[in-house]
């Protein structure tokens, strides 16, 4: 009797023990997809770099081929301006930004950088020539820098202190040279 019971139970146990590879594979796939979706959502929900945040490193390759890393500029105040040749409001502040650059350049404590957003090179170079802009400028290759800052449009300017911490943001064009100075000077007095 006991032998019979063993004989009948054994095949069932074998069937139960067999793993359902198909189901496991489907579940792994579904969980993997959900994980990717969660990562994507988390990334999408990350807001822009706000005042007080440390700015992640970025690399700007200028139109003349020089490479500038933000981390290499530690110890200096960085004025990062996003612009484009097709942007009319950018033209309003172009002269003031250049004047500010010429004002701070001799001390070497402030660096101005221009990131050309979604632009074409001939027109961008024409714009720089038109406004006689001499501070380093380069295309925002792959829109990586603008995506890191999550800019909403151009012009936008980010003032970063000597510790690579974002200190102020200007959305839209600067109205005057004194407005630019008003954002930079407090950082130099620290």
């Amino acid at each position, binding site marked *: 009797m006991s032998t019979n019971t063993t004989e009948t139970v054994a095949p069932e146990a074998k069937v139960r023990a067999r793993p359902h590879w198909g189901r496991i594979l489907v579940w792994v796939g579904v969980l993997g997809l959900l994980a*990717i979706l969660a990562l994507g959502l988390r990334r999408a929900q990350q807001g822009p770099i706000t005042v007080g945040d440390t700015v992640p490193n970025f690399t700007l390759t200028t139109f003349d081929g020089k490479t500038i890393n933000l981390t290499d500029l530690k110890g200096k105040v960085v004025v990062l301006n996003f612009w484009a*040749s*097709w942007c009319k409001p950018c033209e309003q502040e172009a002269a003031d930004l250049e004047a500010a650059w010429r004002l701070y350049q001799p001390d070497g404590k402030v660096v101005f950088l221009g990131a050309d957003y979604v*632009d*074409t090179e001939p027109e961008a170079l024409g714009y720089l020539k038109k406004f006689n802009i001499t501070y380093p400028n380069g*295309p925002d290759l792959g*829109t990586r820098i603008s995506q890191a800052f999550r800019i909403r449009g151009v012009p936008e300017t980010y003032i970063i202190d000597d510790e690579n911490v974002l200190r102020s943001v200007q959305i839209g064009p600067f109205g005057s040279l004194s407005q630019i100075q008003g954002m930079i000077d407090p950082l130099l007095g620290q």
Partner: protein
Amino acid sequence: MKKTIPALLVFLALALMTAGAVLAQSGNPGEPTDDQVNTIAKQLYCPVCENIPLDVCGTQACAQWRDLIREKLGQGWSEAQIKQYFATQYGDRVLATPPARGLNWLVYIVPPMAILAGIYILYRAFQSWKRPSAEEDVKAAEPVPPPADDYVLRLEEELKKR
């Protein structure tokens, strides 16, 4: 001979007109046409004007991009080279069709997989709907077994004895 001279003149006039037309059509042979530019432009999206293909976008930024496409075509660049240039300059997001690399593969793999999984689930569902009804039909055809009651069994045995 008299008949052949006017015919010859007409033929020459027609030949000259045709040659003129051909010359007018060819124009500047190196310059790409609008159609050639738009064929590539419709596969690109400018990040400034989201969801509007480059060929129908009216902003200055898009006009500059179209001019750039024209310039590159004039330099003999292929469609693939131009698209790659734009992707390098402005990121993959400017391409209408995401390139099949990295996580982008999911875009090409997940929808067909989901469709196949859906077909399989439907197939299994239809099978499960069909099976019980067939069993029920068989059960309905079978005679209902008599109740196993001791009194009834004894009664039947008594009846058999008589």
